[in-house]
């Protein structure tokens, strides 16, 4: 019992501070926290959808929540149900088996909502293109706000993609409001 806490306190914080790393990331991260604060009340709930990926992207996404990248400090957290989510993080080429599920997930998410397609496969189907199991890229089934390329993309790229998507939100919000009035 004591040993685990000794270990915890000896290790200390491992989250990379905002000032560390290359300048671009720092800027980016600052920008994200600014953006999310303004647009989503500094809270962004993400539902991850694996539409048929090789799980390479998932490993990077998991790193996002780990102690080093710690997305939670920006108010970005992952949720269990699309009903709770603001943003869908879709990975992989869309397989026939996941096609309906992906659309259903999109439908189940309350407005205003965003979609970020992660990885090369999500955009071009990658090495899986032409496979009998693959139905197409993500944007063929649901409207995608931002593509994050890379195979797999790094956590920083993911953060950048999320930021870009959040940047598109004001327009969407207004459109939704107009739709609601009509």
């Amino acid at each position, binding site marked *: 019992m004591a040993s685990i806490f000794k270990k915890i306190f000896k290790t200390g914080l491992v989250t990379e501070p905002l000032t560390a790393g290359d300048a671009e990331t720092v800027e980016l991260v600052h920008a994200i926290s600014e953006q999310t604060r303004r647009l989503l009340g500094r809270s962004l709930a993400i539902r991850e959808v694996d539409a048929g990926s090789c799980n390479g992207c998932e490993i990077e996404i998991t790193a996002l929540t780990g102690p080093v990248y710690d997305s939670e400090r920006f108010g970005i957290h992952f949720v269990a*149900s*699309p*009903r709770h989510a603001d943003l869908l993080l879709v990975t992989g080429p869309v397989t026939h088996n*996941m096609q*309906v*599920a*992906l659309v*259903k*997930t999109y*439908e*189940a998410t*309350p*407005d205003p909502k965003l979609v970020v397609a992660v990885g090369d496969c999500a955009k071009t189907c990658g090495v899986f293109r032409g496979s009998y199991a693959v139905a197409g890229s993500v944007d063929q089934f649901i409207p995608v706000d931002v593509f994050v390329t890379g195979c797999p993309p790094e956590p920083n790229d993911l953060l950048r993609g999320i930021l870009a998507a959040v940047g598109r939100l004001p327009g969407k919000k207004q459109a939704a409001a107009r739709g*609601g009035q009509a």
Partner: protein
Amino acid sequence: MSAVLFPLMLAGYAFGALAGLLGGRGSVGRWLVALGAGLGAGAGLGLGAGVIAGGGALVWSSPDLFGFAGGLQLRLDTLGAAFLVLIGVGAIPAAIYGAGYSEAYEDGRTALRRHPRQGAEASGFMLNLFLLSMSLVAMADNIFTFLFMWEAMSLSSYFLVITESSELGTLQAGQWYLGMAHLGFVCVAAGFMLFAGGDWAASFDSLRAGAAALPAALRSIIFLLALAGFGSKAGIVPLHLWLPMAHPVAPSHVSALMSGVLIKLGLYGLLRVSLDLLGGGPAWWGGLVLGLGAVSAVLGILYALMENDLKRLLAYSSVENMGIILMALGAGLIFHSYGLMALAGLSFVAGLYHTLNHAAFKGLLFLGAGAVLHATHTRNMELLGGLIKRMPWTAFFFLVGAAAISALPPLNGFVSEWLVFQALLGGFQIPSSEMALIMPLAVGMLALTSGLAAACFVKAFGITFLAIPRSVPAEQAHEATPAMRAGMGLLALLCLGLGVLPFAVVPLLGRVLAGIGGLPADPVVLTFNLSLQMPAGFGQMSPSLMAVGLVGLLALIPVVLRMLRVNRRLRLSDTWGCGRTGQTPRMEYTATAFAEPLRRVFTQLYRPTKELTIDFHPESKYFVQSIEYRSQITPWFEKVLYRPLLEGIRFAARMVRRLQSGSLHLYLLYISLTLVLLLIVARWL
């Protein structure tokens, strides 16, 4: 006042009974029966209320009728009046409901099936007879009258139980009921005979006067006989076996009456004998009642949880609620024996309050279950679901009943359970440490019971009424008729009223037992701020203010949210199921699944039997064609107590059967031998 009401009550029931015999079929006949029953019950209610409010006891006797046994003697004191009120409370809504429900029996149909079968014409007659005999049990003032009415009550309810006699299992359930009722009757009669020294005609007054002179051991034997006899009516574990059998097969308004009122008369008998006639006894009497009550409460609700038959579930839950009432009464007897009169009064008031409340919410639930049965022709919860959209009123009323029985504020079950808790918490004032140490255990059992009851009624309501229908009949269900809705509505209002206005009810209940067995009057006083406060010094609570607060908050929250310009847009969509293509009822949680965690928690008690049959493909055992899983729970008391008993009876019956040869000469021989034997006995022995 009582001079008018008493004949009116008799006349009402008589009218209803006649209407049942002569009125024939059709809505006029049904409504005339209901009118008679309602009138009789209403008059009884007025009569009881008048006596409790201070109108003085009603005395009526007819020495000529049944003169050989001392004649009919009636006397209505406050205790009897309380149960007369209870009969009225249960019977009026049931009668109204029955007028609509009995339509199902037109052309000889039964509620369970759509197809015409052999019907039951006499049920209107029996219903009125049943109500009348119950009323007169509460008024009986000598042994003969009491036992006569008791038997009439059992028999008339037996005939009501077997109304749907064409259904499988109904007659068997009826036989169980009749058997248990007579077992109880024998005990009660034996108790009275010992009490009165064999005098059938002894009046209760003479019993009361002679009670003190009886030896202590005899008093205890009388008490135990009364406990067994009345306990079999009240459904104390292990004598409760008939409840889950007879309640489900009876017509639903009769189930409501049996569960709400009939079994309560067992409590009446117990109170009458132990507290009033015997004048209380040693502490272990109360301890025994408390222990049996606790066991009944916990086992009752545990078996209710495992039931998938809606009405059986309700029947087991009646066992539970009788357990709670008995806990209160047992605590009262304990306090009484130690002279802690204020606490004893509180306990009895709590018990009586729960009695009244149980009549209201269990009546309501049985009526609701009846409406479901009426609409879907099934009691199996696994085939129901989605009824909240098809029967919104019934669903709402059932929800009120379910919340009330789960003791949720601000409904009535909460108030009476709170009072029972308060009474038990007072247990530390008992001087004997052994008895005092029972109290925390009782509190724990009561709390477990109420937690499990909440789980049980989430299951009962949730599986039956929510989500999507699990069968075609449930999908095609229709709302109950207006008469049925009116009956349920009345009881739902009563649940709310008894919950919100306890300060009006409790002092009246306090008066019920005033002066009986040396209890003081008005044990629970009404304080200024509408709250209940005990002179015995424990808690304080105001359900009415709580109700006002809850309603206020519920109204305020949407207003505040609107003022804060919260987004109010809503979109309908498919149920989220992790992206699967469609939703079918088979994906829903079932009643069995809902109860599964608790079944595993209490598996040492349930000891379920499992049976797994896997049908493999003939070519390879890696391909399964079908899997069949059966699991069954047989209550242990059936296994341990009743099975050996039944086997013993069967064995005895086989022995006796040897006497039956079919030869006329042999029978004549028996008769002659008996005659000779009797003559010898009469002459020389």
